[in-house]
């Protein structure tokens, strides 16, 4: 087994949906402690890439290596590997039949086999960390979108993941609630969590990310420090995308 340098390493990743090729050979890696933001137009394959990292989508070809374990090996224990990767979804996907506390406890109990007291302690710590300790007994439907998403983050964190995946975590939120979630994510980044974030929040990418990856048409167009990719993009496609995103009322139609 190769020495573990990267938290996650992706080599020549392809993904087809029927005849549609969504990912056309992706190579990149995230190092431990790094925060990488993936930006790009919708349909560029960025969410698919993220979902290939924990094999929610089965790649058509290529390798995904997580902490030295190849996930694309057909005989890998994928459930064990997924415990190391937390995922936060655009639509939160909280379990609606459980309270916030139970949402954060259930996988600890069922997957990690933690005892009730321990699981509850860890759940409360994580809910406190995301700022909703007072909503432990609320059901998801009784929470705002921003609160639900923070419970979802706590649910993932309670599993002590080595890597956190965020799939457009603020895209389904009302504008005034976006900040609560981004603040939690920023704190997490500052604590040294390894994060791979698909987002349209350019301010977050610029301020928090160590690296920004711009994807378009199923390939990585540009990959570099945030200041460079967002501040001085090299490629025309990156430039035109950023113009549209940063100045939407002056887009060339």
């Amino acid at each position, binding site marked *: 087994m190769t020495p573990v340098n990267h938290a996650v390493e992706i080599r020549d990743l392809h993904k087809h949906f029927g005849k549609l090729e969504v990912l056309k050979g992706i190579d990149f890696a995230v190092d431990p402690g790094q925060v990488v933001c993936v930006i790009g137009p919708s349909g560029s394959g960025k969410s698919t890439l993220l979902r290939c990292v924990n094999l929610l989508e089965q790649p058509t070809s290529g390798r995904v290596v997580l902490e030295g374990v190849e996930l694309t090996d057909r005989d890998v224990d994928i459930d064990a590997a997924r415990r190391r990767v937390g995922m936060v979804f655009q639509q939160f996907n909280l379990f609606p039949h459980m309270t916030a506390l139970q949402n954060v406890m259930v996988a600890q109990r*069922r997957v*990690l086999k933690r005892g009730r007291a321990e699981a509850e302690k860890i759940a409360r710590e994580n809910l406190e960390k995301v700022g909703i300790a007072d909503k432990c007994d609320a059901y998801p439907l009784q929470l705002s979108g921003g609160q639900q998403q923070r419970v979802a983050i706590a649910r993932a964190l309670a599993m002590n993941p080595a890597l956190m995946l965020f799939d457009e975590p603020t895209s389904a939120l009302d504008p005034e609630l976006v900040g609560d979630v981004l603040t939690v994510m920023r704190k997490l980044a500052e604590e040294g969590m390894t994060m791979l974030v698909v987002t349209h929040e350019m301010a977050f990418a610029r301020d928090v990310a160590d690296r920004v990856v711009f994807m378009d048409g199923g390939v990585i167009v540009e990959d570099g420090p945030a200041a460079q990719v967002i501040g001085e993009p090299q490629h025309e496609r990156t430039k035109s995308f950023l113009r549209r995103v940063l100045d939407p009322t002056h887009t060339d139609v």
Partner: protein
Amino acid sequence: MTDQSTKTEPGPDGGVPVRTGLSPRKKQQISRAVQYVVLVAAVVFLLMRIEWGKLAENFAKPEVAAETLPDLFTVALKNTIIYSVGGFFFAFLLGLLFALMRMSSVRPYRWIAIAYIEIFRGLPALLIFLLILFLPLALPGFEVPGGTYGQGILGLTIVGSAYMAETLRAGLQAVPKGQMEAARSLGMSHARAMTTIVIPQAVRIVIPPTTNQFVSLLKDSSLVLFLGVSGEYVELTKFGNDMASTFANATPILVVGVTYLLVTIPLGYLASRLEKRQARGR
């Protein structure tokens, strides 16, 4: 400006065409009046035609009604409930099994489930009870466990499970895909995610239609009659039929009918309440 109807309307200032004849409101009033007249005429006709004394004598004779007690509740209703709750319980389990098989990635399981559902959803309940009655002929030495109760429950299980399988499948498919994905991303196996996350939500979704299915099974439990039950095993319909024969009077049938309604109407009400609550909650 007014026309021949008493109703005044804002005068047409050129644009609106001038109405001729009755106003729509007038027409509606007349139509409603006609409907009331027809209704009253029909009721009066029926009241005059029916021989009330004879009707009461045959369908609502207090002495006969009193004879049905206490067995009406302690035996007949009790058995009806045993048959239908038992049938419902096993139909639910079997239905869940077939729903999961129907969605299985193993193709023969899907085939078996589809065949079972199509066959038993398409057969009349009575036919199924007759099949059970003749089962010992087909399989010598075979006996349904639980005797008469077992036979009745088996029949209702078969009748209910095919419908239950389809209802539960709809419920399972109504759980958003993101739920399974969230569970899997937390490291749960497919089976664990199903039992902990998906099935509990699916069951909640199907509670209202399932309540209606229970009402339907409760009514179908009357078919136990065809198994030739007697004595302590009789359910409501058989009980009513026997009593009616004994007294040569239809009162027990009416009494039994009211007893069914005592159970089915509250249940139907409960189902619609649950449905409303769910529409609010989701």
